[in-house]
């Protein structure tokens, strides 16, 4: 087990680089160039709300968020 409070995976086949997640959770998601999305798959607890918002705002719904404790 790892200690991450939040777990994220992005379906990068689906991602089209709209970048909404980058605006909503800049500490977690970043774009390298136009469509190369790099993200932290296990950010800290403080990022939970921004990440949940980013996942909800993704135009192609490519972000999956879950917590080991079942929240999110």
């Amino acid at each position: 087990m790892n200690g991450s409070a939040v777990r994220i995976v992005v379906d990068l086949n689906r991602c089209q680089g709209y970048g909404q997640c980058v605006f909503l959770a800049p500490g977690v998601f970043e774009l390298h160039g136009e469509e190369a999305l790099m993200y932290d798959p296990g950010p800290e607890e403080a990022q939970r709300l921004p990440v949940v918002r980013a996942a909800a705002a993704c135009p192609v719904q490519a972000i999956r968020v879950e917590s080991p404790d079942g929240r999110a």
Partner: protein
Amino acid sequence: MSPAKGVFSADGHVVVVGASLAGLRAAEALRKGGFRGRLTLVGDEPYEPYDRPPLSKQVLSGRVAPESTALPQDSGLDVEWRLGAGAVGLDLAGKRVRLADGQDVSFDRLLIATGTRARPWPNPTEAALDGVITLRGRDDAVRLRGELAAGPRRVLVIGAGFTGSEIASACRSLGLAVTVTERAATPLAGALGGTIGAVAARLQRENGVDLRCGVSVTSLEGDDAGHVRRAHLDDGTTLEIDVAVVALGAQRNTEWLRGSGLGAGPRGVACDAGCRVFDMYGIVTDDVFAAGDVARSPHPLFGFEFLALEHWSNAIEQAEVAAHNMLHAESERRPYLHVPTFWSFQFGVGIKSVGVPPLGEEVVIVQGSTDERRFVAVYGHAGRTVAAVTFDQGKWLEFYLDQIERAAPFPPQYRNVAQPEVRQVLPAEFPDPVVPTEGPMIVRTGHSPTERAWTLLPARGGRA
């Protein structure tokens, strides 16, 4: 005898061997599909399933800790984890899997999802030198990251497939000097062909990679302390290096099935389009299924060619089909019709693909331009569109997916946004399949069942 559906769903025991992306997604799909019985996941690594793509990108660049790549999983999955001791044998008649710690696990139905591992450097003495590394798992990423953080004079990446190219990209983002060697004429030749591979070559060189194609590394040399310091190439040159990353593609984890009676070997575990595994006589088994990198199955869209796909989306979608078919009777089973897709991020460019580029003999740029590194390339085989590859133009791929599924004519007849003035159909320049190249990602592993032909491949590795 297989238990009846209702009984199996309530009381059966499913064992999934392989606790990575395919194994985890299959477990989730089994539960979502109503399976309430025992579910055991066997994994050789001591970790719960984690995502591999970040290991060659944001983990190497230091942005993300290797241990924070654990995959999200459904809460209440109710799985018995058997981690840290992989499967070493299968007793098909007795329906038991033997684990590395000597214990047996019995099953009613089995899913084989053991995936692949990195192909090691062929010389074991050289492979054991400090600083000689392959990258497949989390522990590998920890080691490589440590080597890169130590500020090596030069990193050598052997093999310019996707993994090797992404590692080179991470090295450049860290400001490290990096040399990439590749036996083929261009990077990514096995996956995209030499014509599009030439675009990837320019991308690497513009980003400061010392790219050397058409050469092989003949030996690695260590210092007195056993750390790699030099690489010798077959063109007579010697490189002074402190790290050698061996990125020579993948090998399928099927050794544990040797002697089991299943149709499994170095090319993967053969299964039907419903993920049901063939035994060694080509007869479909009732209770053994396969999914992910290790599985090879006939694809109806591509002439029933047996394909083994080393792709992220393949692991997920094939796992879901396998799980569905494990829970359903014959008349309700689903075929695996997924059109392959993949992505790679390197040097700030997104490379994406749909279909099977290596089936294509010809390629045409239909949108954008290779000079600007923003384009769509369409691949054709026998007058049909079989694949599309984009550089920073991934938004168009859905359209081309549809074209591939409809077997649209090649070269494409329609007009496009940002269409080049002249559409030139070029040879795709895939290497001869008999000549091994690094990381093709899609492996055409067999002939059509409707075509009773055998091809004898020349023996490798010095066998007469």
